[in-house]
């Protein structure tokens, strides 16, 4: 049973290796891609079910007890995140069958997709700080390659900024790990949790400074203000399938790491949580302002990621409140928000990609007429778009609701006010896409004439639509029956606040004894 924990790492790794060996056959890669991500999804769902039934699962890799060996842990949060990774991966793998051209496939799109998923899922289940660094690097290198695949000018420029800033983040992370090990002598997160109170009592400032390094490093990954530069520089440049999986997952790994680190290891650092809350508030606003200023579908969507990251981190930042109810609600909101956002944001990119293919451009000013031409596509767009804007009864509404509720209960009026302002501007910029691409009459000059991508026939369009429709249905289901996700998120929040089940699952730490 415990072996299940490692499956979300091994399945994509095996697929990646097989995909490399099959690099001659685009067809085989496609099949491995869809089947492999499907298997990942299935395994992750199984993992979630098992976690729900049996509680936190931990696996001591290579059989060495914690804290000596590397622990993989799946608590509710990890399991949810892995499922979300599986969902996004599966959707993108299908979408990519059409979206990724032959050149890029040959150059290794599918192996990199698997490696990326491996890194993402690995990050979610690892219970070891240095191992988390390795996971990040797996994810990073895959994302570097995916971003640069194709070598178009814009892509290269975006990739340079993306890679540089992410490498800076890695360097800071690595330094932070060195310091952390120097402070505590361990890397196991559960063990760190146990040692940290003692260390912090003795060296409070040093612990705060170390936490600061982690905050900056993960803040870069998550896209917090003012560390998010890499994101709007690059997310609109690669093929849509790549943007979609980036948009869905990458920043959320950063958020996950922030949540994990600043509950399990630095759970009592009020200053850090306050800083997170401030930065998150600024992130909401700065991100949405960016979105409002743009007229390019994917740029708008990219800035929205930032803004929404702000919402999620606000949930974590509410840990400043001493009220356990607020803390629980805040974390619950953060988890719910992440789940909602991954599905919705990936979908918006996928649909944006369909629009791009139909219109040959992503510039809103050159678009129009899609509502008349394809009302069903318009309806499909509205589901994630309105969900992102927090319109009930879609998933985003519940995410905002729980966050507002936590913020109000904590008495953080400014934060809630900023969230409301950002909410209205989110609506504004989603409607901008709707107005310009769908409602407006098509422009006089037909941009499709200049289309550089091969036109879509029915079959290919259907392949692109399958994942988009699937994710939209998921959004609707979460919206209409939010209870399930709320229960999951509530459970995850509970485990984050009281990690006893986590510690017990990791086991040996408590006694600290050798085998």
């Amino acid at each position, binding site marked *: 049973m415990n072996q299940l924990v490692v499956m979300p790492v091994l399945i994509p790794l095996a697929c990646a290796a097989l995909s490399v060996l099959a690099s001659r056959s685009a067809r085989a890669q496609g099949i491995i891609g869809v089947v492999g991500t499907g298997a990942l999804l299935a395994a992750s769902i199984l993992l979630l079910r098992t976690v729900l039934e049996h509680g936190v699962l931990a696996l001591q890799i290579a059989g060495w007890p914690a804290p000596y060996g590397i622990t*993989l842990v799946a608590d509710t949060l990890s399991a949810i995140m892995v499922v979300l990774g599986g969902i996004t991966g599966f959707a993108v793998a299908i979408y990519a069958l059409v979206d990724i051209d032959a050149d890029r496939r040959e150059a*290794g799109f599918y192996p990199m997709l698997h490696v990326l998923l491996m890194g993402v899922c690995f990050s979610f289940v690892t219970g070891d700080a240095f191992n988390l660094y390795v996971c990040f690097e797996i994810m990073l290198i895959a994302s570097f390659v995916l971003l640069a695949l194709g070598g178009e000018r814009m892509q290269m420029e975006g990739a340079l900024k993306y890679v540089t800033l992410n490498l800076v983040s890695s360097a800071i992370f690595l330094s932070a790990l060195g310091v952390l090990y120097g402070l505590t002598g361990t890397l196991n997160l559960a063990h760190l949790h146990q040692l940290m109170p003692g260390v912090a009592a003795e060296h409070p400032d040093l612990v705060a400074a170390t936490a600061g390094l982690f905050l*900056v490093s993960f803040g870069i990954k998550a896209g917090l203000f003012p560390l998010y530069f890499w994101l709007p520089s690059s997310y609109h440049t690669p093929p849509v399938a790549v943007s979609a999986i980036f948009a869905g997952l990458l920043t959320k790994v950063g958020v996950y790491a922030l949540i994990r680190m600043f509950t399990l290891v630095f759970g009592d650092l009020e200053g850090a949580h306050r800083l997170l809350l401030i930065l998150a508030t600024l992130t909401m606003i700065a991100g949405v302002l960016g979105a409002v200023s743009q007229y390019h579908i994917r740029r708008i969507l990219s800035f929205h990621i930032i803004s929404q990251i702000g919402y999620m981190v606000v949930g974590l930042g509410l840990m400043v409140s001493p009220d356990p109810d607020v803390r629980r609600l805040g974390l619950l909101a953060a988890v719910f928000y992440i789940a909602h956002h991954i599905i919705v944001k990936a979908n918006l990119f996928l649909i944006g990609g369909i629009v791009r293919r139909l219109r040959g451009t992503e510039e809103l000013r050159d678009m129009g007429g899609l509502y008349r031409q394809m009302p069903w596509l318009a309806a499909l767009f509205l589901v994630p778009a309105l969900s992102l804007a927090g319109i009930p009864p879609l998933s985003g509404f519940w995410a905002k609701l729980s966050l507002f509720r936590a913020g109000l209960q904590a008495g953080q009026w400014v934060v809630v006010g900023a969230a409301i302002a950002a909410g209205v501007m989110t609506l504004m910029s989603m409607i901008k896409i709707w107005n310009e691409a769908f409602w407006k009459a098509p422009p006089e000059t037909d941009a499709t004439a200049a289309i550089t991508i091969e036109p879509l026939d029915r079959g290919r369009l259907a392949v692109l639509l399958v994942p988009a429709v699937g994710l939209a249905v998921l959004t609707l289901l979460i919206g209409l029956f939010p209870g399930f996700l709320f229960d999951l998120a509530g459970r995850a929040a509970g485990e984050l606040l009281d990690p006893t089940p986590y510690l017990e699952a990791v086991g040996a730490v408590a006694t600290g004894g050798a085998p």
Partner: protein
Amino acid sequence: MTDPLILIILVPFAATIVAPAVARRLGAHTGWVLALAPAIVFAYVSRLLPIEPGTAHTVAVPWVGSLGIEFAFLADGLSVTFLLLISGIGALVMIYASSYLGRDPRLGRFYVFLLAFMGAMLGLVLADNLITLFVFWELTSVCSYLLIGFDHEKAEARAAALKALLVTGLGGLLLLAGFLLMGIAGEQLGLSAIAAGKISGLAAVDLREHAYYHAIFILVLLGCITKSAQVPFHFWLPAAMAGPTPVSAYLHSATMVKAGIYLLARLSPHLGGTPEWGWTVGLIGLVTMLTGSLATLGQRDMKRVLAYSTLAVLGTLVMLLGVGTEMAVKTAVVYLVAHAMYKAALFMVAGNVDHETGTRELHRLGGLRKLMPWTALAGILAALSKAGAPPMFGFIGKEMLYTTKLTVENVGAWAVVASVVANVALVASALMVSVWPFLGKRGDTPKKPHEAPLAMVLGAVLLSLMGLGRGLMPQPFETNLGSAAASAILGRPVEMHLALWHGVDPTALAVLGLSLLTLTLGGGLYFLIRRRVAPVGPLLRRLFSVGPTQLYDLTLQGIYSGADRVTRFIQSGRLRFYVMVTMLVTVIVAGPPLVRAFMGGPAAANGGWRIHEIIVAALALTAALAATALRSRLATLALVGVVGTCMGLLFVFFSAPDLALTQVMIEVLSVVILVMVLHRLPLVIKRSGRLSRGRDAVVAAAVGITMTLFVLTVARVDRDPTVSDFYLEQSVPAAHGRNVVNVILVDFRAMDTLGEITVLGAAGLGVLALLRLRRKERS
């Protein structure tokens, strides 16, 4: 779920599924079929009558257990009144719409939106749970957005729809915050989570005593007044006339804009009754009433006249709810019902005129009564009710309004004057939309008018006749519904007595006098406007052209340009700026506590030094520093290589042979790769000036100092040795390896290594991919 109350909400939603198919088959006759949905609702709700004042029927289904949110519904006098208006007028509008839109290919879609809107409205007025209510509230906003922007290829329609959505959307979010605070306050006052979320549950506590009362009150009020188009958020409503007329007839008479009124009424037992409530709500209503009624005089488009007069009535209703006395509430109920009926009728009339003549501009209309007799009849009857002329239902409403004003203390004479002024204007505007187009000389219209088809006349005639009927026989209304509605708003059972004639007592006579005065003055005003004696129109237009509309435009522009400027500043495109900010943040976040920690402790043991160590370290240091100054790429590369090699040596000195081996091997490979990469890159040119170099040096030094301090401070800490001791002890016996570092790599922490080789392999493939694509380009 079997409770019929819930089922009636589902009826319109269910109808949306069949609507497109029906519309495709039946075209202009679609409405007759789809009107069945609201008709069923109407029939069911009618059977609930009479409603006993002070009673309520509630039903709840669990929804989100963990947050205590239920699908909870409540039927009392207030909600039933609204249910009847929504479904009754809804049915008539349904019939009207397909005829109005004719062969529009988007008819099916239109009905989907309209039916969904209706379902949302039904849900809104039935909801007992605050969150349930809010869900429907927002749904009405979205549906109305789609309906107002139905002619979406016109920029004006899009802008109008956006305006409505943004204003109500902002209000919605504020309302949500208010609702959540209500829940929190309720819980703090001792309610369970479920009870605190319910409107009926809140009756058990007094929110007015809670510290959050003012916040709740302001937030909820903002939600209501944005939705119900009160000053200063009123501007979206006239703009929304860009929507098709059936939409205006439905949304802007009886439903959408009344949602805010409904909510104020619904919550007034819980939030009302304080002086703050009275003054704020009353004043907002009063200002809106005056604004709307005066602005209506400046309009010459029939629909816009109606839109502004709607504002006036909405303002009046809000004002009455602010006053909140028994009389005021009863007045509000009567006024609300009367207005819903005559305004829907008038919108339909305007639609008919527009449809048949091709224009809604008053100065091109006239003398239509012979050509469109039924429309004219409906228009004139409805306008009489609007004008508050006896024996219409509107007359009763106005009489009660004046009675309220005269009998309530603290309101003062100026409120009476304001009411009279507003009503004079309303009389004039009623004449504008009835006398002007239908009587007098034939106008010069784009199309030659005929009477509109039955479907389009039916609703207007029925509604206007009902206005007459209710006026003559108000008793069925008051016993069946009116009393119960007023009781629900007041929060205690009351009796309502309506009459056209109140006998001879001083107040009644004064009121009657005021009514007659209003009618006379209104008639006179209309005459002035019609003859263009007074430049009232242009003057008023100019007066009302400044104000919140401009503010909205400016705000919108401000947001756009501000967003642009901020984003350009932050996202400048200059990579070095990004790196610098990132580094500065690192220093700012980690630096201060680090300096405190460093200052606070003793120096760490330095561990002595050997000359060869110092030489190697100094060499590395010098090489690194020199690397920043050199221009030659290869020389810089050599220096970086020297740094790496020195590190290898340091690893050797400090007991790390594996590291040293790896470091040196890697260094060699890196240099090989870099040589190949740097091949044919341009020479390094110095690009930055002395100033920016100085600035960069300061930032860089700050980072360096921070890290140095980290090393020095952390070295003082005695870390827990358990983990590394374990590796040293167990490596040979348990893992069968004498090289502990390697055993860690391939056994104790093999998972790291597995990840690491994945990174390595992926990087290799990545390099290949980068080089490959380039080759393709060339060939």
